[in-house]
């Protein structure tokens, strides 16, 4: 005769077995009990069926992107930096925010400029700040790229399909910077193609902007914004800003490699892809 309390213990054991919470001895004991007791085995089958039903019909949900974006913005803006507050607020109001939030990897961002890229932004510095914010947001969201591919022939068409201007996409794997993919940042209210490369655990974002508007120097110049080393420069009609948490010297190496590869790419295509003007 099994008392109510024994039956309850037995039942709790059954649940613990289902949940993988029994120790080895408990598992053996439960296996014996299941083999000997049809009712217990039937109960176990029901519990498994219930688990199956919950797993398939009530899966863990993904937090809405808009919520994620609001939280990231709220967390960021609680710092004493009013510049960011206004920057974030403006970006949040834009319909393309979703794309923006989903973007960003870890550390080197190259953004490519588009028509009127900076015209609504007061100064090139503000544009650079937006590039850094994009990079940070990518790291925070854990989703640095919208299109993930180490193949530039995948990334480039993806960007091209969404932007009026073809972006410069180069393969830097031989130089030790693996292409992770691309995303589109919002700089001054306009989309800016951004490539994300990876070295070790560090990310580099490179954002391409229109040189006419961003007014970056022809010789790469390094500055520090929000603790991130940023290198800005321009080549022909394009301006670039590279951001990373890499050591500044490594970011220098990245920029050198990127410029070299970009020059080669321009030579091959006769710089017809810019479509500027």
């Amino acid at each position, binding site marked *: 005769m099994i008392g*109510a*309390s024994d*039956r*309850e213990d037995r*039942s*709790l054991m059954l*649940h*613990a077995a289902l*949940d993988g*919470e029994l120790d080895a001895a408990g598992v053996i004991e439960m296996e014996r009990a299941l083999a000997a007791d049809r009712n217990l085995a*039937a*109960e176990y*089958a*029901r*519990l*498994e*069926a*219930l*688990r*199956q*039903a*919950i*797993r398939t*019909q*009530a*899966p*863990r*949900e*993904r*937090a*809405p992107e808009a*919520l*994620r974006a*609001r*939280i*990231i913005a*709220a*967390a*960021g803006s*609680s*710092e*004493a930096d009013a510049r960011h507050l206004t920057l974030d607020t403006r970006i949040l109001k834009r319909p393309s925010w979703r794309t923006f939030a989903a973007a960003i990897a870890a550390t080197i961002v190259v953004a490519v400029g588009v028509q009127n890229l900076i015209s609504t932004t007061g100064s090139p510095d503000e544009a650079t700040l937006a590039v850094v914010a994009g990079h940070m947001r990518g*790291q*925070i*969201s*854990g989703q640095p790229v919208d299109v993930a591919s180490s193949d530039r022939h995948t990334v480039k068409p993806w960007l091209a399909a969404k932007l009026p201007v073809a972006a410069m996409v180069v393969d830097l794997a031989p130089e030790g910077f693996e292409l992770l993919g691309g995303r589109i940042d919002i700089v001054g209210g306009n989309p800016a193609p951004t490539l994300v490369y990876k070295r070790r655990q560090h990310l580099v974002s490179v954002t391409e902007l229109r040189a006419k508007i961003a007014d970056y120097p022809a010789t790469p110049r390094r500055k520090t914004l929000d603790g991130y080393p940023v290198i800005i420069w321009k080549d022909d009609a394009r301006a670039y800003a590279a951001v990373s948490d890499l050591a500044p010297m490594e970011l220098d190496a990245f920029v050198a490699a990127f410029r070299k590869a970009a020059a080669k790419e321009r030579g091959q295509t006769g710089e017809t892809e810019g479509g500027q003007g």
Partner: protein
Amino acid sequence: MTSEAARRRFTEQVLPHLDDAYTLARWLTGNPTDAEDVVQDACMRALRALDGAPVEHPRAWLLAIIRNTAFTWLAKNRPHAVVLAGGAEEAHAHQGALEEQAAPTPEEALIAKADRESVAAAIDVLPIVFKETLVMREINGLSYREIAETTGAPIGTVMSRLARARTLMIDKLGRMA
């Protein structure tokens, strides 16, 4: 004012668990809009708390904040739900865990083929303490120990609540089919 360290910890320890946070809030409040409010409010509380020390088990910690925030919200907006919870568990304590097991029970095949609406409805009608335990275990995938940490209940209580929640669901789904 939030320190740089708190923001970094927030990024590293809170943001990765946002889906879990939202899912729990979704079930506790019963609708997506209120869940968003609860999650946002809870995250701001978490951010402020991170100004102190780093936390040891970020997911359980965050879910505990979600839970507290959701209960505050429920007490304000659905006082009925919270009252019911206490009553149900008390009744259960006197009754012995799975007394109703004696009644004929549905086939597992019926349960396995329950559709989305039935499963959601069966979870929704659970008294809140059973519901949160079931959601944390089956949907968030927390261990007994983590659920105990999150809810502040002893592991034995977690186990009996979970067993009770599952029995109620099996009952309900068996009757729906």
